[in-house]
């Protein structure tokens, strides 16, 4: 049954979304659409509105204008039923420094209400994938940057989500761990999970199936990375943003 469900197409449809905090406009008239089977990258420098977008999708914030529609096989769903399908990994270090890898996993198992059998399977699979099995008893506070992020990803993947929101998951992670992290994400996408991640690393944009380019709360463009680069006549996304800066002046 679960397998059948995950074959379903999940869509998040965002139209004319706006969010302000006092005088600051964090998001201005943003529309985008995310669908199962792809890895989406929200690309943009700090302050682009990436985290705000995630929080709005998770309904931790309420938009000032516009709407987010959650669809299952093109049928609109209530967020409450949708929420259980989403796993979220916040940008800030959000694990408990004094709890071990193992304790994190079993804590999130309880929160997600996973039964013991599924948990045992999932746990082994994830530990194998992240190669954290040797560090089960190590407290999260004593893990390296890369291992820490992997543990965060494990906690998010534990619930077998249909959608994953990752807010700058590779920020501050060494190049080798970043590569490993990316292949883990690719595995997740291949399993039929809709993955949306944000990053400020422009080189990562090219690895995504589709990207949304953002700057100062505005959406600059969206689509397949190569096509976007061709239309803008630039070699990479660094140049894309740099050229924009010049145009503004």
């Amino acid at each position, binding site marked *: 049954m679960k397998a059948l469900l995950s074959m379903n197409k999940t869509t998040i449809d965002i139209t004319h979304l706006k969010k302000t905090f006092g005088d600051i406009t964090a998001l201005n008239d943003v529309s985008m659409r995310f669908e199962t089977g792809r890895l989406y990258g929200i690309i943009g420098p700090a302050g682009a509105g990436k985290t705000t977008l995630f929080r709005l999708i998770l309904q931790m*914030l309420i938009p000032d204008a516009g709407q987010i529609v959650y669809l299952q096989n093109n049928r609109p769903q209530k967020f409450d039923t949708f929420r259980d399908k989403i796993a*979220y990994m*916040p940008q800030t270090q959000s*694990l*408990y*420094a004094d709890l071990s890898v193992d304790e994190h996993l079993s804590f999130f198992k*309880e*929160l997600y*209400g996973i039964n013991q059998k599924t948990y045992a399977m999932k746990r082994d699979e994830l530990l194998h994938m992240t190669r954290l099995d040797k560090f089960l008893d190590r407290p999260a506070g004593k893990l390296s940057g890369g291992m820490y992020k992997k543990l965060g990803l494990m*906690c998010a993947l534990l619930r077998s989500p249909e959608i994953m929101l990752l807010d700058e998951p590779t920020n501050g992670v060494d190049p080798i761990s970043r590569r490993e992290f990316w292949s883990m994400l690719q595995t997740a996408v291949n399993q039929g999970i809709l993955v949306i991640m944000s990053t400020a690393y422009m080189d990562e944009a090219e690895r995504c199936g589709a990207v949304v380019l953002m700057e100062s709360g505005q959406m600059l463009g969206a689509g397949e990375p190569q096509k976007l680069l061709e239309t803008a006549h630039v070699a990479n996304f660094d140049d894309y943003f740099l050229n924009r800066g010049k145009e503004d002046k």
Partner: protein
Amino acid sequence: MTVFSLRRTKAVCLKEFKHIFRDPFTLMMALLLPLLIVLILGNAIEFNVKSIELAYMDHDKTQSSRKLIETFGSSDYFRPYHIETPTKGQDDLAAERAKMMLVIPPNFEKEMMTARTGNVQIMLDGADNSSVSAIMNYLNTVNNLAFYKIQGLPATDNKPLKIKTRYLFNPELNSRWFAVPGITALIVALVAIMLTALTICKEWEQGSMEMLLSTPIRATEILIGKLLPYAGLSFCGFWIVFLAARFIFNVPFNGSYLILIGATLLFILGYLAMGLCISVISHEQQVAVQYAAVIGLLPTALLSGFIFPIEYMPPVFQGISALFPARFYVEIARDQFLKASSFSDLWVPFTALSIQIIVLMLIGIFKFKRTLE
């Protein structure tokens, strides 16, 4: 999605216990500090003044004047010593070697015999307000006793009106007996308000709250799971004070355990809610500590009747004190330790306490849910 899941609440509760037992600071604050505070406050709070150094100058040097000094000395309260000159006495007062100076004039006995009244001069260290009021009380008694002694009459004289005072509930007017319930309130304030505010703020500061909120867990489950361990710790703190009071300071307990424990649990609930409210106002631990001190600890110490009696406060402050659960809790606790009134006599503070707790809880939970925005 279930409305309330015991499993998730239990998981948060268990996690919180792990945090507590792995953090020596929290444990110390919760268990060692109460003991320390009771021992320090219990020994230091002594509103009964004893062994008052009394410098005297006897210009009369008669049997009567000696009897007067003897009366002072025969009580536990005064320790008379002789001085030669008034300047010496004043020096002693200034240097706080003496709390009081007594000067007996040359014709003291003569006056006593003829006019039946004698005049003596007493000088007190007015800078020390609390001892002065105590000394003034003792002086009245000494005055009477000395009169009978000098006149050679038995102390039980046939005075037309005899006033015999008996202090009910606290026969010795032992101030420690009076102080203990206040200390309990102070410790619950410390543990419940401070630690609760800290633990929730920590979760915000670390960013783990965001992670938690993205899981199926409900706000009420987070709150119950996180607050329950601290309710337990506060209750332990209460027992530490209670046992120390009973067995170290021998404070009697006449009331009903049911009423005292009931009131204590209500009070803890109220202060947990207050801690929660603070964590809503500020998500930073440092700021939360300051709020906890100002709206938690200070009113508990100053406006609960622990140090300053409520009845003698100006009406405005009486009104303000009624805003804090501590006032009603101290009232109930004090009553249960010493007077042991029945529940029906205590319905006013109990009702007040309950209303406050419901209001605080509602504000806390409602605001907590709102700050997710």
